[in-house]
Protein backbone atom coordinates (compact mmCIF):
# COMPACT_ATOMS: atom_id res chain seq x y z
CA UNK A 1 0.00 0.00 0.00
CA UNK A 2 1.49 3.34 -1.04
CA UNK A 3 2.07 6.18 1.38
CA UNK A 4 -0.32 8.19 -0.75
CA UNK A 5 -3.24 5.86 -0.12
CA UNK A 6 -2.51 5.42 3.58
CA UNK A 7 -2.80 9.20 4.07
CA UNK A 8 -6.25 9.13 2.49
CA UNK A 9 -7.70 6.31 4.54
CA UNK A 10 -9.21 8.73 7.07
CA UNK A 11 -11.41 11.18 5.11
CA UNK A 12 -12.42 14.33 6.88
CA UNK A 13 -15.90 14.61 5.36
CA UNK A 14 -18.37 12.43 3.52
CA UNK A 15 -17.79 14.45 0.36
CA UNK A 16 -14.02 14.08 0.67
CA UNK A 17 -14.48 10.35 0.88
CA UNK A 18 -16.91 10.14 -2.02
CA UNK A 19 -14.76 12.32 -4.26
CA UNK A 20 -11.62 10.37 -3.41
CA UNK A 21 -13.51 7.17 -4.15
CA UNK A 22 -14.66 8.49 -7.51
CA UNK A 23 -11.10 9.56 -8.28
CA UNK A 24 -9.70 6.14 -7.40
CA UNK A 25 -7.59 7.54 -4.60
CA UNK A 26 -8.75 5.39 -1.69
CA UNK A 27 -7.02 2.35 -0.30
CA UNK A 28 -8.65 -1.06 -0.29
CA UNK A 29 -10.07 -0.73 3.17
CA UNK A 30 -11.62 2.65 2.47
CA UNK A 31 -13.07 1.41 -0.82
CA UNK A 32 -14.74 -1.45 0.98
CA UNK A 33 -16.15 0.93 3.55
CA UNK A 34 -17.57 3.24 0.89
CA UNK A 35 -19.10 0.43 -1.09
CA UNK A 36 -20.66 -1.03 2.00
CA UNK A 37 -22.25 2.28 2.78
CA UNK A 38 -23.39 2.73 -0.80
CA UNK A 39 -25.28 -0.50 -0.58
CA UNK A 40 -26.95 0.51 2.69
CA UNK A 41 -27.51 4.25 2.47
CA UNK A 42 -29.73 5.72 -0.24
CA UNK A 43 -28.86 9.33 0.54
CA UNK A 44 -25.15 8.45 0.34
CA UNK A 45 -25.77 6.87 -3.05
CA UNK A 46 -27.66 9.96 -4.18
CA UNK A 47 -24.81 12.16 -3.05
CA UNK A 48 -22.32 10.12 -5.02
CA UNK A 49 -24.57 10.26 -8.06
CA UNK A 50 -24.82 14.02 -7.92
CA UNK A 51 -21.08 14.48 -7.53
CA UNK A 52 -20.40 12.07 -10.36
CA UNK A 53 -22.94 13.78 -12.58
CA UNK A 54 -21.44 17.22 -11.97
CA UNK A 55 -18.06 15.77 -12.81
CA UNK A 56 -19.38 14.28 -16.04
CA UNK A 57 -20.81 17.66 -17.02
CA UNK A 58 -17.25 18.90 -17.28
CA UNK A 59 -17.08 16.93 -20.51
CA UNK A 60 -19.00 19.87 -21.96
CA UNK A 61 -15.92 22.02 -21.59
CA UNK A 62 -14.30 22.21 -24.94
CA UNK A 63 -10.77 21.08 -25.51
CA UNK A 64 -8.78 23.79 -27.16
CA UNK A 65 -6.90 23.10 -30.35
CA UNK A 66 -3.98 25.22 -31.34
CA UNK A 67 -3.94 26.64 -34.82
CA UNK A 68 -1.06 26.09 -37.23
CA UNK A 69 0.52 29.41 -36.41
CA UNK A 70 0.93 28.57 -32.75
CA UNK A 71 3.79 26.12 -33.23
CA UNK A 72 5.48 28.35 -35.76
CA UNK A 73 5.30 31.45 -33.58
CA UNK A 74 6.39 29.49 -30.51
CA UNK A 75 9.40 28.05 -32.29
CA UNK A 76 10.21 31.52 -33.65
CA UNK A 77 10.11 32.97 -30.13
CA UNK A 78 12.40 30.23 -28.92
CA UNK A 79 14.78 30.85 -31.83
CA UNK A 80 15.01 34.50 -30.79
CA UNK A 81 15.70 33.36 -27.25
CA UNK A 82 18.44 31.02 -28.48
CA UNK A 83 19.99 33.85 -30.49
CA UNK A 84 20.00 36.13 -27.46
CA UNK A 85 21.61 33.41 -25.39
CA UNK A 86 24.28 32.90 -28.05
CA UNK A 87 25.03 36.64 -28.11
CA UNK A 88 25.22 36.78 -24.34
CA UNK A 89 27.51 33.77 -24.32
CA UNK A 90 29.73 35.32 -26.98
CA UNK A 91 29.98 38.57 -25.06
CA UNK A 92 30.81 36.62 -21.93
CA UNK A 93 33.61 34.81 -23.74
CA UNK A 94 34.98 38.06 -25.17
CA UNK A 95 34.89 39.60 -21.71
CA UNK A 96 36.66 36.60 -20.25
CA UNK A 97 39.32 36.67 -22.95
CA UNK A 98 39.82 40.41 -22.50
CA UNK A 99 40.15 39.92 -18.79
CA UNK A 100 42.69 37.16 -19.35
CA UNK A 101 44.78 39.36 -21.65
CA UNK A 102 44.59 42.27 -19.23
CA UNK A 103 45.67 40.03 -16.39
CA UNK A 104 48.57 38.67 -18.41
CA UNK A 105 49.65 42.16 -19.48
CA UNK A 106 49.45 43.42 -15.93
CA UNK A 107 51.49 40.44 -14.74
CA UNK A 108 54.17 41.09 -17.36
CA UNK A 109 54.32 44.79 -16.54
CA UNK A 110 54.51 44.06 -12.85
CA UNK A 111 57.31 41.60 -13.44
CA UNK A 112 59.23 44.15 -15.47
CA UNK A 113 58.66 46.82 -12.85
CA UNK A 114 59.72 44.47 -10.06
CA UNK A 115 62.82 43.44 -11.94
CA UNK A 116 63.75 47.04 -12.63
CA UNK A 117 63.22 47.96 -9.00
CA UNK A 118 65.45 45.13 -7.79
CA UNK A 119 68.12 45.87 -10.33
CA UNK A 120 67.97 49.60 -9.70
CA UNK A 121 68.29 49.06 -5.97
CA UNK A 122 71.32 46.81 -6.41
CA UNK A 123 73.04 49.19 -8.80
CA UNK A 124 72.23 52.21 -6.63
CA UNK A 125 73.58 50.47 -3.58
CA UNK A 126 76.80 49.67 -5.38
CA UNK A 127 77.09 53.29 -6.45
CA UNK A 128 76.38 54.49 -2.97
CA UNK A 129 79.10 52.25 -1.63
CA UNK A 130 81.50 53.64 -4.17
CA UNK A 131 80.64 57.22 -3.28
CA UNK A 132 81.10 56.47 0.37
CA UNK A 133 84.47 54.86 -0.22
CA UNK A 134 85.69 57.49 -2.70
CA UNK A 135 88.06 59.26 -0.30
CA UNK A 136 89.75 56.01 0.46
CA UNK A 137 89.84 54.99 -3.17
CA UNK A 138 91.47 58.27 -4.14
CA UNK A 139 94.34 57.65 -1.65
CA UNK A 140 94.46 53.90 -1.81
CA UNK A 141 98.05 53.98 -3.11
CA UNK A 142 99.18 55.93 -0.02
CA UNK A 143 97.21 53.72 2.34
CA UNK A 144 98.78 50.63 0.92
CA UNK A 145 102.14 51.97 2.19
CA UNK A 146 100.81 52.43 5.72
CA UNK A 147 100.93 49.35 7.88
CA UNK A 148 98.86 50.58 10.81
CA UNK A 149 95.61 52.56 10.83
CA UNK A 150 96.26 53.84 14.34
CA UNK A 151 99.35 55.63 12.95
CA UNK A 152 97.09 57.49 10.53
CA UNK A 153 94.73 58.43 13.31
CA UNK A 154 97.62 59.79 15.35
CA UNK A 155 98.73 61.90 12.40
CA UNK A 156 95.19 63.24 12.04
CA UNK A 157 95.04 64.08 15.73
CA UNK A 158 98.29 66.08 15.61
CA UNK A 159 96.95 67.96 12.56
CA UNK A 160 100.27 67.90 10.80
CA UNK A 161 98.82 67.35 7.32
CA UNK A 162 95.40 69.10 7.61
CA UNK A 163 94.51 69.32 3.93
CA UNK A 164 95.35 65.68 3.07
CA UNK A 165 93.86 64.30 6.31
CA UNK A 166 90.40 65.85 5.70
CA UNK A 167 89.98 63.73 2.63
CA UNK A 168 90.93 60.51 4.33
CA UNK A 169 88.84 60.72 7.50
Amino acid at each position, binding site marked *: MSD*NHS*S*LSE*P*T*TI*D*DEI*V*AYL*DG*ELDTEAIARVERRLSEDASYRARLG*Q*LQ*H*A*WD*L*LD*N*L*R*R*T*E*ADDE*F*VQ*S*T*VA*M*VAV*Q*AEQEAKTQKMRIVRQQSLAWLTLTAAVLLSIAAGYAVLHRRMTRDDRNLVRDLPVIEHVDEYLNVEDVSFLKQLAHENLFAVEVDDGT
Partner: protein
Amino acid sequence: MALTQSQPTHYELHDPDVRLMLQVRDGDAAAFTELVLRYQNRLLTVLEHLVGSREQAEDLAQDVFVRVFKARQRYEPEAKFSTWLFTIANNVASNALRSRSRRREVGVPEGNGADSAPLALDQLAKAASGFMPTRALDKAEQAEMVRHAVAALSERQRMALLLAKFEGMSYQDIAQTMGLSVQAVKSLLSRARVNLKEILTPYVERGTRPDEAESPPSGTSESQEQEQP
Protein backbone atom coordinates in the same frame (compact mmCIF):
# COMPACT_ATOMS: atom_id res chain seq x y z
CA MET B 1 22.02 2.53 -4.32
CA ALA B 2 23.18 5.99 -5.31
CA LEU B 3 22.50 7.02 -8.88
CA THR B 4 25.38 8.19 -10.99
CA GLN B 5 25.09 10.38 -14.04
CA SER B 6 25.42 7.34 -16.29
CA GLN B 7 22.40 5.61 -14.78
CA PRO B 8 19.03 6.61 -16.23
CA THR B 9 16.41 7.74 -13.76
CA HIS B 10 13.03 6.11 -13.34
CA TYR B 11 11.43 8.91 -15.33
CA GLU B 12 13.94 8.69 -18.11
CA LEU B 13 13.14 5.03 -18.47
CA HIS B 14 9.36 5.30 -18.33
CA ASP B 15 8.48 8.72 -19.70
CA PRO B 16 9.14 9.30 -23.42
CA ASP B 17 8.57 13.02 -22.97
CA VAL B 18 11.38 13.12 -20.42
CA ARG B 19 13.64 11.53 -23.01
CA LEU B 20 12.59 14.18 -25.52
CA MET B 21 13.38 16.92 -23.05
CA LEU B 22 16.80 15.44 -22.44
CA GLN B 23 17.37 15.66 -26.18
CA VAL B 24 16.36 19.30 -26.01
CA ARG B 25 18.92 19.70 -23.26
CA ASP B 26 21.49 18.31 -25.63
CA GLY B 27 20.58 20.88 -28.26
CA ASP B 28 18.03 19.01 -30.37
CA ALA B 29 15.68 21.62 -31.82
CA ALA B 30 13.42 19.02 -33.46
CA ALA B 31 12.83 17.42 -30.06
CA PHE B 32 11.63 20.75 -28.72
CA THR B 33 9.23 21.20 -31.63
CA GLU B 34 7.89 17.72 -30.98
CA LEU B 35 7.23 18.59 -27.33
CA VAL B 36 5.37 21.72 -28.39
CA LEU B 37 3.22 19.68 -30.75
CA ARG B 38 2.47 17.10 -28.07
CA TYR B 39 1.53 19.54 -25.36
CA GLN B 40 0.18 22.66 -27.06
CA ASN B 41 -3.47 21.57 -27.03
CA ARG B 42 -3.30 20.17 -23.52
CA LEU B 43 -1.66 23.31 -22.21
CA LEU B 44 -4.04 25.61 -24.05
CA THR B 45 -7.08 23.72 -22.77
CA VAL B 46 -6.09 23.99 -19.13
CA LEU B 47 -4.92 27.58 -19.43
CA GLU B 48 -7.97 28.76 -21.34
CA HIS B 49 -10.35 27.39 -18.73
CA LEU B 50 -8.13 28.71 -15.99
CA VAL B 51 -7.87 32.30 -17.19
CA GLY B 52 -11.04 32.42 -19.27
CA SER B 53 -9.50 33.84 -22.40
CA ARG B 54 -8.23 32.05 -25.50
CA GLU B 55 -5.95 34.93 -26.43
CA GLN B 56 -4.37 35.14 -23.00
CA ALA B 57 -4.10 31.36 -22.84
CA GLU B 58 -2.04 31.39 -26.05
CA ASP B 59 0.28 34.05 -24.66
CA LEU B 60 0.70 32.15 -21.43
CA ALA B 61 1.25 28.84 -23.22
CA GLN B 62 4.02 30.38 -25.31
CA ASP B 63 5.52 31.86 -22.16
CA VAL B 64 5.53 28.35 -20.66
CA PHE B 65 7.32 26.87 -23.66
CA VAL B 66 9.91 29.64 -23.67
CA ARG B 67 10.56 28.99 -19.99
CA VAL B 68 10.93 25.28 -20.71
CA PHE B 69 13.49 26.13 -23.37
CA LYS B 70 15.37 28.53 -21.10
CA ALA B 71 15.55 25.88 -18.37
CA ARG B 72 16.77 23.14 -20.69
CA GLN B 73 20.44 23.19 -19.70
CA ARG B 74 19.77 22.60 -16.04
CA TYR B 75 16.88 20.16 -16.60
CA GLU B 76 16.97 17.06 -14.45
CA PRO B 77 14.17 14.47 -14.70
CA GLU B 78 12.89 14.47 -11.12
CA ALA B 79 9.23 14.07 -12.09
CA LYS B 80 7.08 13.20 -15.06
CA PHE B 81 7.55 15.74 -17.82
CA SER B 82 3.86 16.68 -17.75
CA THR B 83 4.07 17.37 -14.02
CA TRP B 84 7.07 19.64 -14.54
CA LEU B 85 5.45 21.39 -17.49
CA PHE B 86 2.20 22.06 -15.67
CA THR B 87 4.10 23.25 -12.61
CA ILE B 88 5.55 25.96 -14.82
CA ALA B 89 2.10 26.57 -16.31
CA ASN B 90 0.59 26.90 -12.83
CA ASN B 91 3.18 29.51 -11.88
CA VAL B 92 2.73 31.44 -15.10
CA ALA B 93 -1.06 31.41 -14.80
CA SER B 94 -0.99 32.39 -11.13
CA ASN B 95 1.23 35.36 -11.91
CA ALA B 96 -1.06 36.41 -14.74
CA LEU B 97 -4.20 36.14 -12.62
CA ARG B 98 -2.52 38.03 -9.80
CA SER B 99 -1.57 40.82 -12.21
CA ARG B 100 -5.10 40.89 -13.52
CA SER B 101 -6.47 41.25 -9.98
CA ARG B 102 -4.12 44.10 -9.29
CA ARG B 103 -5.18 45.83 -12.50
CA ARG B 104 -8.82 45.49 -11.46
CA GLU B 105 -8.05 46.99 -8.07
CA VAL B 106 -6.59 50.12 -9.63
CA GLY B 107 -9.36 50.34 -12.23
CA VAL B 108 -7.28 49.52 -15.31
CA PRO B 109 -9.65 48.57 -18.15
CA GLU B 110 -9.33 45.03 -19.47
CA GLY B 111 -8.04 44.53 -22.99
CA ASN B 112 -9.78 42.61 -25.74
CA GLY B 113 -10.25 38.96 -25.05
CA ALA B 114 -9.92 39.28 -21.31
CA ASP B 115 -12.39 37.31 -19.35
CA SER B 116 -15.25 38.92 -17.53
CA ALA B 117 -15.03 38.47 -13.80
CA PRO B 118 -16.22 35.07 -12.65
CA LEU B 119 -19.69 34.88 -11.28
CA ALA B 120 -20.01 34.41 -7.57
CA LEU B 121 -21.20 31.03 -6.42
CA ASP B 122 -24.07 32.54 -4.56
CA GLN B 123 -25.25 34.33 -7.70
CA LEU B 124 -25.23 31.14 -9.70
CA ALA B 125 -26.86 29.16 -6.94
CA LYS B 126 -29.57 31.78 -6.65
CA ALA B 127 -30.16 31.62 -10.35
CA ALA B 128 -30.56 27.89 -10.01
CA SER B 129 -33.23 28.25 -7.40
CA GLY B 130 -35.89 28.51 -10.04
CA PHE B 131 -36.71 32.19 -9.80
CA MET B 132 -35.56 32.64 -13.37
CA PRO B 133 -37.62 31.90 -16.44
CA THR B 134 -37.26 28.34 -17.68
CA ARG B 135 -35.89 27.34 -21.00
CA ALA B 136 -34.67 24.05 -22.32
CA LEU B 137 -30.93 23.78 -22.29
CA ASP B 138 -29.19 23.05 -25.51
CA LYS B 139 -25.69 21.75 -25.75
CA ALA B 140 -24.09 25.13 -26.28
CA GLU B 141 -25.96 26.59 -23.35
CA GLN B 142 -24.99 23.66 -21.20
CA ALA B 143 -21.36 24.17 -22.12
CA GLU B 144 -21.62 27.85 -21.30
CA MET B 145 -23.26 27.03 -18.00
CA VAL B 146 -20.49 24.61 -17.09
CA ARG B 147 -17.91 27.16 -18.13
CA HIS B 148 -19.45 29.76 -15.84
CA ALA B 149 -19.64 27.27 -13.00
CA VAL B 150 -15.94 26.46 -13.36
CA ALA B 151 -15.09 30.15 -13.60
CA ALA B 152 -16.92 30.70 -10.32
CA LEU B 153 -14.49 28.45 -8.49
CA SER B 154 -11.40 29.81 -6.80
CA GLU B 155 -8.20 29.78 -8.82
CA ARG B 156 -6.75 26.85 -6.89
CA GLN B 157 -9.94 24.80 -7.01
CA ARG B 158 -10.18 25.47 -10.73
CA MET B 159 -6.56 24.47 -11.37
CA ALA B 160 -6.85 21.26 -9.37
CA LEU B 161 -10.11 20.38 -11.11
CA LEU B 162 -8.71 21.06 -14.59
CA LEU B 163 -5.59 19.01 -13.93
CA ALA B 164 -7.70 16.13 -12.63
CA LYS B 165 -10.22 16.32 -15.46
CA PHE B 166 -8.15 17.15 -18.52
CA GLU B 167 -4.79 15.71 -17.54
CA GLY B 168 -6.05 12.80 -15.49
CA MET B 169 -3.48 13.61 -12.84
CA SER B 170 -3.41 11.72 -9.58
CA TYR B 171 -3.65 13.59 -6.30
CA GLN B 172 0.09 13.07 -5.89
CA ASP B 173 0.86 14.63 -9.26
CA ILE B 174 -1.49 17.53 -8.67
CA ALA B 175 0.12 18.10 -5.28
CA GLN B 176 3.54 18.19 -6.88
CA THR B 177 2.35 20.51 -9.65
CA MET B 178 0.69 22.97 -7.31
CA GLY B 179 3.17 22.73 -4.47
CA LEU B 180 0.57 21.42 -2.02
CA SER B 181 0.16 18.41 0.19
CA VAL B 182 -1.91 15.49 -1.02
CA GLN B 183 -4.43 16.19 1.73
CA ALA B 184 -4.77 19.79 0.57
CA VAL B 185 -5.42 18.60 -2.98
CA LYS B 186 -8.01 16.19 -1.73
CA SER B 187 -9.82 19.03 0.07
CA LEU B 188 -9.52 21.31 -2.94
CA LEU B 189 -11.04 18.78 -5.30
CA SER B 190 -13.75 17.84 -2.86
CA ARG B 191 -14.82 21.45 -2.43
CA ALA B 192 -14.56 22.12 -6.14
CA ARG B 193 -16.80 19.24 -7.04
CA VAL B 194 -19.29 20.02 -4.31
CA ASN B 195 -19.47 23.60 -5.54
CA LEU B 196 -19.97 22.41 -9.08
CA LYS B 197 -22.69 20.08 -7.98
CA GLU B 198 -24.49 22.82 -6.10
CA ILE B 199 -24.43 25.08 -9.12
CA LEU B 200 -25.10 22.58 -11.86
CA THR B 201 -27.54 20.08 -10.40
CA PRO B 202 -30.57 22.40 -10.47
CA TYR B 203 -29.90 23.29 -14.08
CA VAL B 204 -29.59 19.68 -15.02
CA GLU B 205 -32.67 18.62 -13.10
CA ARG B 206 -34.92 21.39 -14.38
CA GLY B 207 -33.22 22.25 -17.66
CA THR B 208 -33.11 25.85 -16.62
CA ARG B 209 -30.41 28.43 -16.89
CA PRO B 210 -30.05 31.92 -15.50
CA ASP B 211 -31.58 34.78 -17.36
CA GLU B 212 -29.31 36.91 -19.49
CA ALA B 213 -29.36 39.62 -16.81
CA GLU B 214 -26.85 38.04 -14.49
CA SER B 215 -25.79 40.18 -11.53
CA PRO B 216 -22.29 41.62 -11.50
CA PRO B 217 -19.80 39.39 -9.79
CA SER B 218 -19.14 39.85 -6.13
CA GLY B 219 -16.00 37.79 -5.82
CA THR B 220 -15.01 34.15 -6.00
CA SER B 221 -15.23 31.48 -3.40
CA GLU B 222 -11.76 32.02 -1.96
CA SER B 223 -13.28 32.74 1.43
CA GLN B 224 -14.78 29.26 1.46
CA GLU B 225 -11.40 27.61 1.28
CA GLN B 226 -9.49 26.40 4.24
CA GLU B 227 -6.87 24.36 2.44
CA GLN B 228 -3.65 23.87 4.24
CA PRO B 229 -0.64 23.43 2.00
